[in-house]
């Protein structure tokens, strides 16, 4: 399994995502230019030029027509995927931490950081309403009083937003009322990433408390816990097998003082149900910041603090892994 290295970023990768079909990979990094690649051969398709700071989050609509990016330059931008031209640019008061297209692709949501005296907020815009974008008046704004949001995704069918917070809390906000309908605090430290299962009935969280956890999307019931000895930055559920992949490692701040073996920068594969680790993939020489499964489950990618995206196609024997039970 020789990985394809995507070398197009100058700084550490912050997030990577596949489009729904899986033929494209979107990547954003602390440099200001998100990229889009062919997942099959690693060829760069293009770059979205316009941001002026670290890009924290990226998403693509279900039909791969639009791309959404949020950055530390206090802008959230919507791009035309095919041409790479900027469609909309929404100015915010603080950095945009996480974002996402709704199921239909008509709504977008993003969350902002709690800095410079401004509260953390969730914004929701309707892309069909040109006035909202032009006048910077969102469909909905939810101010967050407590711990700030560090990761957020849409719940199923555009009804809710699932948020992970700096203190380890996970909340579900109702889009109609703007109120918290569910919350839990199974993690003890910051939630670094939330990724849904392909049918949006479950999601997996990655936390600084060295664990990743599987939750039920409706009830926030904790189903499974995957334990490591390093902070987990990102976790994804395989759409094909009962597997999850975890990426993480020693915190970037401490990395310079430790050697790569202590850091444990491997991508780690766990069985979804048994919570047992069965494999590791080495390669990054810094912590892994984002992992993503190809929608067909036959390959996965990881983006690291080292600035590389590595696309891995599984060997045939991966498909033969069987747990006795």
């Amino acid at each position: 399994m020789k990985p394809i290295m995507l070398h197009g970023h100058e700084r550490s990768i912050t997030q990577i995502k596949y489009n729904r079909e899986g033929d494209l990979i979107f990547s954003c990094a602390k440099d200001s230019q998100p990229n889009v690649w062919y997942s099959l051969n690693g060829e760069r398709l293009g770059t979205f030029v316009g941001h002026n700071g670290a890009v924290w989050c990226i998403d693509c609509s279900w039909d791969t027509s639009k791309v959404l990016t949020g950055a530390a330059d206090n802008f959230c931008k919507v791009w035309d995927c095919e041409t790479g031209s900027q469609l909309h640019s929404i100015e915010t008061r603080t950095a945009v931490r996480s974002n996402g297209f709704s199921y239909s692709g008509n709504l977008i949501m993003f969350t902002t950081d709690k800095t410079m005296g401004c509260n953390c907020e969730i914004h929701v815009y309707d892309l069909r309403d040109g006035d909202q974008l032009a006048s910077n008046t969102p469909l909905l704004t939810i101010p967050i009083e407590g711990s700030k949001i560090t990761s957020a995704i849409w719940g199923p069918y555009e009804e809710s937003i699932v948020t992970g917070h700096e203190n380890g809390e996970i909340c579900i906000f109702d889009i109609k009322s703007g109120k918290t309908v569910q919350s839990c605090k199974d993690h003890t430290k910051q939630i670094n990433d939330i990724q849904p299962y392909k049918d949006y009935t479950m999601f997996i969280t990655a936390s600084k408390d060295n664990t990743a956890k599987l939750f039920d999307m409706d009830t926030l019931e904790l189903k499974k816990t995957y334990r490591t000895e390093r902070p987990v930055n990102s976790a994804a559920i395989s759409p094909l097998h009962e597997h999850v992949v975890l990426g993480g490692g020693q915190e970037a701040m401490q990395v310079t003082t430790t050697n790569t073996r202590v850091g444990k920068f491997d991508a780690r594969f766990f069985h979804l149900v048994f919570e047992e680790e069965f494999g590791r993939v080495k390669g990054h020489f810094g912590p892994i910041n984002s992992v993503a499964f190809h929608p067909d489950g036959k390959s996965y990618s990881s983006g690291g603090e080292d600035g590389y995206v590595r696309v891995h196609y599984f060997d045939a024997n991966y498909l033969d892994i069987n747990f006795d039970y």
Partner: protein
Amino acid sequence: MAAGRVDSESRKSRDSESHIEDEEIEVEEEEPNFSDPEDFVDDVTDEELLGDVLRKRPKPSDSVDSVIIVDCIPKVGKERLDKLKNVIKKLFSKFGTVVNAFYPLDDEGNTKGYMFLEFSSPQNAHEAVKMTNGYKLDKQHSFKVNHFSDFEKYINVPDEWTPPDPKPYQDLGNLRSWLQNKESYDQFSVIYGEGEKTAIFLNTPEPSMVEERARWTETYVRWSPQGTYLATFHVKGIALWGGPKFSQIMRFSHPGVQLIDFSPCEKYLVTFSPLQDNHEDPQAIIIWDIRSGAKKRGFHCESRSTWPIFKWNQNGNYFARIGEEAISIYETPSFGLLDKKSLKIPAVRDFSWSPTDDIIAYWVPEQSNTPARVTLIEIPSRNELCVRNLFNVADCKMHWQKSGDYLCVKVDRYKTKKTDDKDQIKYSGIYYNFELFRIREKQIPVDKVEEKDPVLAFAWEPIGNKFAYIHGEAPRINVTFYNIQPKGKVELLKTFEKRSANHLFWSPNGQFIVLAGLRSMNGVLEFIDTQDMTVMTQTEHFMATDVEWDPTGRYVVSAVSWWGHKVDNGYWLWNFQGILQHKQPLEKFCQLQWRPRPPSLLSENRVKEIKKNFKTWAQKFEQEDSMRKMTASKDMLEKRRKLMEDFREYRSQKDKEFAEMKEIRLQLRSGIDTDELHNQEDNFTEEIIEFLIKAEEKIVEE
């Protein structure tokens, strides 16, 4: 009586005051009557009226401690009293201000032969008693000086001795119950969570917890040499725990205790605290009787030698410490010096007991013309068994083999010696000698092995005739093994070259050894069978700080302690062949210690017999092992099956819910079904992408 006098004086002055008042009344007329009516009962207590003043009232006991009695002073008449007073004053004013001196006189005005002195402070009185008791004034008169307060103390001593009530017997359970484990699993203690938590584990295939307590100890724990007790450290002293439930067995109060040591017989405990020492009552080092909890003897700690300061002999009958120019040997249970005198050895530098016999080995450095010397003496006879003279000695280190069969003295020798301007001796051209004493052979013959490289570590095979040492300079570090043939030669077995090792750990039963490169050497571990000198396993526990064999020599633990390294704390368990058995990461893990075992009760012949019939025994155990493995894997499969069933059930529910929402999904995505990845093949557009298959370079001919 001093207080009495003050009383009468104050009464006198009060009388005079009332006298004045009377006069004033005469002058001022028509004074209203303040006096109480006849039947008035005063209901205001003194406490209410002037409580604050009363509390400050001097108590009789305040000054009692400052009063001393001087007995056996000369009996003199009036005419010589002043002279006596002068002498006494001169003598006692050295210790502080004498506030009061009282000479009781008989009817004729002669002194009674004793007197009272009051000092300004109890400290002065204390000092005076200490210094002048037994003072010789002249031939006939030696003072007997006591504290006044002592009289009361001694008067209250009952004339008849009543034996103290015996302490009720407390059944602590079987203190060796852990040895009765059917599978002979060993126990070990683990401190983790930055020292907050201490736990005892049983070394079952998956280590199982026996006991866990938060804040069991304040620093670390120690097992007694035979594993009976677990000692925990506290600000106020040491506590010992044991029995099946690890209940508290005894406490030893020694504030600020830092170091402890057990006698090999587990009868006595030695504790050291730097806080508690005074001249009178030595408290720095205390030796306790473990079973009664009684303090047996306290010692000062003047010397700066390393712990343990007191070294015990093999069975706890003697203990010894090194002093200046002498070794002091004490015996138990009297805790007095053996034969009432220390062993005088000028310039003695170090000594050590044989681990199995009452033999002391000590060495003396070179002095002017006499060479350095290593001597073996027998205790208590103090007979010299063997003396070895050595030349050009810079330093010596003594290593006894655990079975007491051999003693190795590692001698650092020099080619030239210089004394620099600061009177510091500088040696150059250092090389090394191992002087090997064969204790069990007639007249103790001594062999010699020379080594040119610097020696980094040395270790005897605990049972057997081999020794190993690490020598050389990085990166060329070698490990050499020698064998001592009984009544024969000392033969070189093998040198392993260029190893990453800085520590040697022999199995407690010999034959197997672990070479470890701890800390700075990244935790390289090498398991060697010295029977045929083969390397069984070369492995690594990255950044390991400690290695510990279990007491039976079946398992080895390597550990990364939080005290030495801040990440990846935990311990790994290996078998003696170096096959990894278990990895246990543990948050802020600090220390692991195996619980020692007492010596085997099997006779030597029985051990030999078992070794002979090893195969029949092994068969039985192998059967047990395979049985256990089967049930273990069965348990695991059972667990997995259960997990899978639960999850499948959950998923089928969710899949049903998902199917029910299909309409909404279609609606949201304008009628396009995206539930399956390749639902709309017809919707695909074809795109041509290129792969770089290979790059070839060809020279085109012109």
